[in-house]
């Protein structure tokens, strides 16, 4: 199947498996809730409308939060920005990682060494720490969060992509294209990249999950999306002290995040399992999910 539609067909195949369907349903329902949420919230998510940490009552099914805002409304409104930033960071990070990975694999020796050294340096920073480093000086701007998270994904993706791309580059059809004096850029884009589709799809799924976790984590630490806007991560933190009085302020966002990420992970697993062909994505998924690339360091 040609590259253009293969990725779509792959998603379709994955969605039809048992795992895929379950994962898609779980993740999809949370995404839907996050998108529609702000429009159907019964109260304003930012105004205090009830007592501090009041337990669930009619009109306030999830009770009140740390300053008396309606937990339900905040939960409904608190997801979309998180998802949007996570999606943006994922696409940016995976895109950069793919470019770096293929270039390192194909251009060989010197470029490979140089690129992988840069990758190694960036990999030394745990993702959360790197974001904190950047945010500490410039402040918690949404665009900065997006870039910081993207930059922390790119090296990991580059490693995984490079490993698979190396295997693809060994194959004779790449030699055959080179024999026609094709310029390097076109060989990489036209011959190598189309054979990395399932790797890239699995990475997109995995990194999206990580993006959500990191950004929620940043918000939890109060460095993410700033109050008073509703934000799941922030809610979990600010409502912690009232855990005994009204746990919903903490539990509801946690449940939503959990369903979303578990669903995503399951769906990504389904993609890995249904991928046919030469990329052996199930093994790659295992390794990538564990954070390493098969045949890692140069």
């Amino acid at each position: 199947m040609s590259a253009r539609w293969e990725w779509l067909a792959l998603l379709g195949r994955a969605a039809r498996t048992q795992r895929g369907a379950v994962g898609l349903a779980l993740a999809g329902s949370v995404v839907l809730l996050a998108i529609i949420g702000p429009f159907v919230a019964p109260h304003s998510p930012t105004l205090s409308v009830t007592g501090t940490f009041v337990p669930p009552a009619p009109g306030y099914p999830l009770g009140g939060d740390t300053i008396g805002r309606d937990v339900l409304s905040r939960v409904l409104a608190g997801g979309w920005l998180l998802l949007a930033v996570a999606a943006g960071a994922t696409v940016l990070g995976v895109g950069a990682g793919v470019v770096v990975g293929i270039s390192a694999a194909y251009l060989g020796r010197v470029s490979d060494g140089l690129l992988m050294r840069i990758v190694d340096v960036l990999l030394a920073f745990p993702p959360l720490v790197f974001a904190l480093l950047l945010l500490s000086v410039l402040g918690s701007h949404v665009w900065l969060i997006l870039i910081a998270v993207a930059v922390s994904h790119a090296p990991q993706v580059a490693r995984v992509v490079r490993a698979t791309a190396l295997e693809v580059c060994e194959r004779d059809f790449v030699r055959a294209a080179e024999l026609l004096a094709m310029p390097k850029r076109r060989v990489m884009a036209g011959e190598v990249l189309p054979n990395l589709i399932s790797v890239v799809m699995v990475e997109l799924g995995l990194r999206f999950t990580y993006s959500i976790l990191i950004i929620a984590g940043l918000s939890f630490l109060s460095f993410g999306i700033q109050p008073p806007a509703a934000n799941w991560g922030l809610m979990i933190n600010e409502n912690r002290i009232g855990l005994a009085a009204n746990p919903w302020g903490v539990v509801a966002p946690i449940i939503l995040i959990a369903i979303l990420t578990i669903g995503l992970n399951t769906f990504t697993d389904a993609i890995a399992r249904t991928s046919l062909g030469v990329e052996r994505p199930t093994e790659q998924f295992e390794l990538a999910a564990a954070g390493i690339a098969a045949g890692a360091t140069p």
Partner: protein
Amino acid sequence: MTHVHRSEEDQPPLSAPTAASAPAAPVAESAVVPGAQLLSVEGLRVVIAGSQADVVDEVSFGLDQGEVLGLVGESGSGKTTVALALMGHTRRGLAIGGGRVMFDGRDLLEPGAALRALRGARIAYVAQDPASALNPTLKVGTQLREVFRAHGTGRLGGASAEERIGELLSEVRLEQVQHALDVYPHQLSGGQQQRVMLAMAFACRPDLIILDEPTTGLDVTTQRHVLDTVRGLCRSYQVAAVYVSHDLAVVGELADRVGVMYAGRLVELGATGPVFRTPGHPYARGLLRAIPSPTRAHVLVGLEGHPPPPGRRPPGCFFAARCDFAIDACRTTAPAPVSLASGEHWARCRRAGEIIKLPPLAELPERDRVAEGGNEPLLRVEGLSAGYGERQVLSDISFTVGARRCLAIVGESGAGKTTIARCIVGLHSRWRGTIEFKGTQLEADRRRRGRDVISRIQYIFQNPYTSLNPRKTVGQIVEQPLRELFSLPRKERARRAEEALEDAALSGEYARRYPDQLSGGERQRVAIARALVVEPEVLICDEVTSALDVSVQAAIVELLHRLQRTRGVTLLLVTHNLALVRSLADDVLILRDGQIVEHGPSVFDQPKSEYAAQLLTDIPRLAPA
């Protein structure tokens, strides 16, 4: 004068015990009653686990003590599945579906059969790829000794494990390898690794050895050594063997009897001589006509199509779709084994009685050689030296290739033949010397070569499974050279691509398919079409048949020959298959360790060098018709 080439008149096999060591007389107590049949397979059936789709079925044969049975077939025939099932083992995803394997009075396929005690001790296995069958993290000695750990030394007639190991090493000719026991497998060569496998197999003096294509990937000389060792050991220990292979010539030299497998069925069984001389089954006959002979250059006849995979096998005879002799009854009901001639020769074909009377090779015409003379040298190589990094691979190679001739470059692996091909086409640029094409010097860096030159010299890769981009259609693949090297309107490109496909014997409708929908032979044809589409003058073929089945090879070989004749293409054939060389080549260049040993049109008829003569004798020979 036809007789199976046996080893009675050979020099003593390499494994003959030297004066220093005690003769390896079969002292060990064999539990088998002498004269009784050692192994009896009845209706063996292996299915895909969890389904009724059979991979192998109705396999029945017997084996006497000391007898060697060859099991031949192509990929997908089920021969390895049968071989493993003889030990009660199936690979993941398969399961025993029925039948019995009677060994020494016990059915090995019964649940609860004490297989572990038998495996390695009385029935041993030699795997196909020693590099992956030996554990990379354990030393060779450990892997040898653990056979004795598991089975004890009871069968050794009093010798200790260490003594026995010493004996084994000399029997397989490893005693000269320093510290053979203390090294890791990757430190040995392919041939040495295979000899370690043989040592492990013969260690406990088994009654039966199963060998699964043990010489695949070894070059002719090493293969000869391994075969002689196997034959010698089998003889001195009176060990029965089942030798699985796709190489009929190898089986022909070693086996007393031969069984031919096709699509999971045993389609013919008999003594080696009769089966290879006068086969009764059309498939066996077809195989024999597809194999190049090292002694006679005849036209090869391939078999179109491919065997039906498990789960999709038709009700009648599985071979009917590809069979020249098929009649209506063949397609509806499966044939039963038909007894032929004397004793034990039978074939699973209704018309076996007639077929047996048609010698397979008789009417195959000799290859008509391309006319010699008036051939200006198209390609001239002078003083070519090349290497990888520091390693020098070629030293001062000089030769010419005449127009419209076929030059075969042969040699062992590592001799440098692929390197020459890659230098000429521009895949390898670290070389010194001169390569001239029609008088113009070729640049080492292919990017500096003009489009014109590039289009005139084309390359066909060995592995058709990796030389086509799985994400492109056949049409896109074949058009690609046109797109890169010339600027032609789309319709013109499509037309030329279709022409090229037809030249490669594929209909135009293949253009819309993807490579993973094609068989190995079809893929290789696509690769050939891709090379043809720019109308080259030189076609460099790098081991283009090595990854293909025998019956498919023949078709590709004939295709190449036809191109040489009708299109006037000059062929440069890199290969290690010497019989193929005999069949196809006009000139032969023998390479050894990066240097030319011999070069000329009649190297195999009258070899001038010792090396060439040695190579000729090392080639395994099928029983000549």
